[in-house]
């Protein structure tokens, strides 16, 4: 395999853009400038077509029924799992379908809670939490990688501890080493922050966790869509990501778990399709991943997620990462030249991806977002589900522009140009 390191050139981006129907839309009479892919991405026609193709040809519930359509649907469904597994350097039986990353994190947290309650027999003893055991997160986590652990702690007597970020919003190994200790059982961290764009030092964090025998849970929502990620190479125990942030529809996400761990973990949701033998008193469960997939699954969405992975692979994740790296650097440089902008996150382009959140002095994020929306520019405003991090920076809300493979330098420039007029519109500067 040849490794492409060249970013996408203008022709390549133009070709990519033609695959995304919404990029032709007018918003408030202006061509859409979509800079909110960190929240959810646009979808290309091949993904939309794949979902429709499946619905038109293979409507059947999977892993049940013996008719031809049921067999073909199951075949397609499992092929999708293989594609998505290969996309992140995992094996197919290590990939559990979920609704989204949030559900994946809750699945792990509730399953560990079930293990702590004595479910899962001897195999699950390794997950049992004792009062005073510690679950370590970072100050910059998305609420989805914080609240499930708070709830788990409340149910088990464990304690949540947070690694503080530095003034640039980065998690350092020095700070992590102060918090990860012998009571640490779980280290739950984002690969890339959805606010600061900072890339976490995963290798070092995994080493610190391994040294004390803690499990590592990786929130890969902002990394898997944007850069090559090899979960086996990262050596994490569990990882989650969402389809809708990587060109796929809503309603489909992935939990990755190391095979031995998934098979030792008791189930979270129970019901049909995840069992071997059921009596009126009890049930026995299938191995992973089926033991975590109770009930009829999101089948066409899984097919569409595989199509999204195909699309991203054809373009090349390394080229996408290089492209976003350029756009991110342009964003950060441009933002720093606008009066009153305070960037949340590192200014060093090496340590960040292609998004940038910032405060605009004297103008609330909602007002800035409204002004940009009037010009057809879609950005995210608010706390981005990271209230503790905003509190750390002394604010309640920020504005975030996030790029993806279909964004151009013109998009970034249009955003920067519009943003430079915001403070004068609101009467904050001349």
């Amino acid at each position, binding site marked *: 395999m040849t490794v492409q390191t060249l970013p996408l050139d203008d022709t390549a981006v133009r070709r990519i853009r033609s695959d995304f129907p919404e990029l032709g839309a007018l918003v408030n009479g202006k061509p859409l400038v979509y800079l909110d892919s960190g929240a959810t991405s646009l979808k290309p026609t091949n993904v939309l077509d794949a979902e429709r193709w499946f619905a038109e040809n293979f409507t059947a519930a999977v892993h049940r029924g013996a008719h031809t359509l049921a067999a073909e649907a199951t075949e397609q469904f499992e092929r999708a799992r293989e594609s998505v597994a290969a996309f992140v350097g995992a094996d197919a039986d290590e990939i559990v379908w979920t609704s989204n990353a949030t559900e994946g994190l809750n699945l792990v947290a509730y399953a560990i809670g079930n293990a702590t309650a004595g479910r899962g027999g001897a195999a699950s003893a390794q997950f049992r939490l004792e009062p005073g055991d510690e679950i370590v997160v970072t100050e910059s986590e998305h609420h989805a990688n914080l609240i499930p652990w708070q709830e788990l702690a409340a149910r088990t007597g464990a304690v949540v501890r947070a690694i503080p970020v530095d003034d640039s919003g980065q998690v350092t190994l020095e700070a992590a080493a102060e918090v990860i200790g012998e009571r640490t059982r779980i280290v739950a961290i984002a690969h890339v922050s959805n606010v600061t764009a900072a890339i976490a030092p995963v290798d070092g964090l995994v080493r610190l966790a391994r040294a004390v025998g803690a499990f590592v849970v990786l929130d890969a929502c902002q990394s898997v869509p944007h850069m090559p990620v090899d979960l086996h190479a990262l050596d994490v125990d569990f990882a989650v990501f969402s389809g809708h942030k990587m060109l796929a529809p809503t309603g489909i996400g992935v939990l990755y778990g190391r095979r031995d761990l998934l098979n030792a973990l008791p189930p979270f949701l129970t019901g049909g399709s995840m069992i071997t033998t059921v009596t009126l008193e009890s049930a026995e469960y299938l191995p992973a991943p089926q033991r975590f997939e109770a009930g009829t699954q999101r089948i066409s969405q899984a097919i569409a997620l595989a199509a999204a992975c195909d699309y991203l692979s054809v373009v090349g994740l390394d080229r996408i990462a290089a492209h976003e790296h350029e756009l991110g650097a342009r964003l950060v440089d441009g933002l720093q030249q606008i009066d009153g902008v305070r960037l949340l996150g590192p200014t060093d382009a090496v340590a960040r991806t292609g998004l940038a959140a910032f405060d605009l002095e004297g103008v609330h994020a*909602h007002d800035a977002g409204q002004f940009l929306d009037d010009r057809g520019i879609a950005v995210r405003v608010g706390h981005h589900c990271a209230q503790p991090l905003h509190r750390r920076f002394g604010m309640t809300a920020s504005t975030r522009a996030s790029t993806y493979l279909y964004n151009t330098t013109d998009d970034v420039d249009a955003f920067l140009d519009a943003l430079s007029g915001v403070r004068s519109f609101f009467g904050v500067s001349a």
Partner: protein
Amino acid sequence: MSGLESLYQQVILDHSREKHGFGLREGEAASSHQLNPTCGDELTLQVHLSEDGATINDVAWEGAGCSISMASASLLSDLAAGMPVADAPARIALFRELMRSKGAGVADDEPLGDAAVLEGVSRYIARVKCAMLAWVALEDSLAQLP
């Protein structure tokens, strides 16, 4: 007037900076804390009544948020000063009707005074909550009165 300019009329921008009624003090008859979890806007509002309890002397408030939520609290403070307590629920209901009118307005916005300039907000569904924040706090405060 463009959509954006009708949303952010000068009087609204002025109120968002001047914040009439800003500053809490002791002696309130009731108070309410309101939070908009989608954007983190936050506001605490107090109702101060006349001795006989029949009239709103003034509403005092503190909070942080977007220009719409701040201006709306300021405009409400102007409107509520001297208002009979018995009249307040109808004014709040009228303001809510205006905010939910999707740009159509209401037949008679006279009882809302200057606060009627917030009509432009009703075209932006995502911002209606911002404008309602202080009014919901007043409604909640009044509901606590004996």
